[in-house]
């Protein structure tokens, strides 16, 4: 069974996501030692110094979603089942930095679909609690681990359906945030596919560095970050870094 990592990466006028992806992919190679496939577009690829150990696939991505009024190219993740060339796939955000072997261990489990249902703010100011303003158990689509089974195909089909009728589902689950967001789309799909009951999850919480935290330095083992006058460190633990400026450090 071939395992691999799938990353979606599309530059926007504001953020050179391919630079963020380069940082993430270097860590994937070091800690997970798995082949990488990048789904990107021609415009992004033209700027990219490509890694020899990664496979780059170009598509024409949808570009009609925004976040805080800026372009947000996140509409393709529900296609991961079809885009992935692997039997067992880890899909991760470009800004998820692997500093441990955890995902590799989880890849060896038999669960055909795994996702986190918890994330926490590493600065412990509860910056992520607003994410809970909905009527369904939230999941975090930052990392997905899946096998190509018929059940998993149905999950991705359900996410596509949610994407197609997103505003209807937001009304149904009383979600105020109306721009398309994969966390909500997967949460709604999982909720429906699983008959409104709980499903298997990755049993830990995603360490998340909020957008207002600045990464001061990083190496192969972790990051130093700052918020206000506080400086702290995360090492040997995977971390989801929301401030994309870390790619320039």
């Amino acid at each position, binding site marked *: 069974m071939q395992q691999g990592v799938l990353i979606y990466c599309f530059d926007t006028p504001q953020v050179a996501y391919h630079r963020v992806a380069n940082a993430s992919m270097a860590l994937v190679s070091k800690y997970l030692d798995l082949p990488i496939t990048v789904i990107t577009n021609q415009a992004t690829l033209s700027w990219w110094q490509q890694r020899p150990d990664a496979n780059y696939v170009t598509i024409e991505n949808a570009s009609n979603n925004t976040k805080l009024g800026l372009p947000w190219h996140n509409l393709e993740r529900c296609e991961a089942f079809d885009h992935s060339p692997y039997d067992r796939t880890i899909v991760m955000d470009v800004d998820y930095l692997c500093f441990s072997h955890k995902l590799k261990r989880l890849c*060896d489990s038999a*669960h055909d679909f795994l996702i986190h249902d918890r994330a926490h703010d590493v600065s412990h100011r509860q910056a992520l609690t607003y994410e809970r303003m909905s009527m369904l158990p939230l999941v975090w689509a930052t990392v997905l681990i899946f096998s190509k089974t018929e059940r998993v195909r149905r999950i991705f089909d359900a996410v596509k359906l949610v994407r197609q009728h997103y505003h209807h589902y937001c009304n149904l689950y009383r979600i105020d945030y109306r721009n398309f967001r994969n966390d909500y789309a997967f949460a709604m799909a999982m909720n429906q596919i699983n008959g409104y009951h709980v499903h298997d999850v990755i*049993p*830990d919480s995603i360490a998340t560095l909020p957008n207002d935290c600045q990464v001061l330095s990083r190496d192969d083992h972790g990051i130093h970050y700052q918020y206000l006058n506080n400086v702290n460190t995360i090492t040997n633990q995977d971390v989801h870094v929301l401030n994309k400026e870390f790619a320039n450090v």
Partner: protein
Amino acid sequence: MDINELKRHSDLSFDRAVAKKNLLSRAESELITVYRDHIFRADPITIATVRTLMEHKDSFFLLDANSNPVEIKDPKQFLAQLVERQQSALNTYHQAYQSLRSLKE
């Protein structure tokens, strides 16, 4: 103690508390282990349960981290895996915690 000194102490305590929480969350992630295709946490409850059950049975059933039943056919090997994972996580935590405690007042 003046107000500035108090504030400095308070800030340092806050930083230590945040760092400790993050170290604990890292340990929680490190406790995750996969045995016979199932995900377990190598926590004290799991270790103690396995240790107790293997005194009475050669094989037994256990719930994984998502409450799915798993037959444990080789408890000795499973226990060794759990202990290794748990001690590795706590050893890392212990080392980081010592560094944290030695932060200058």
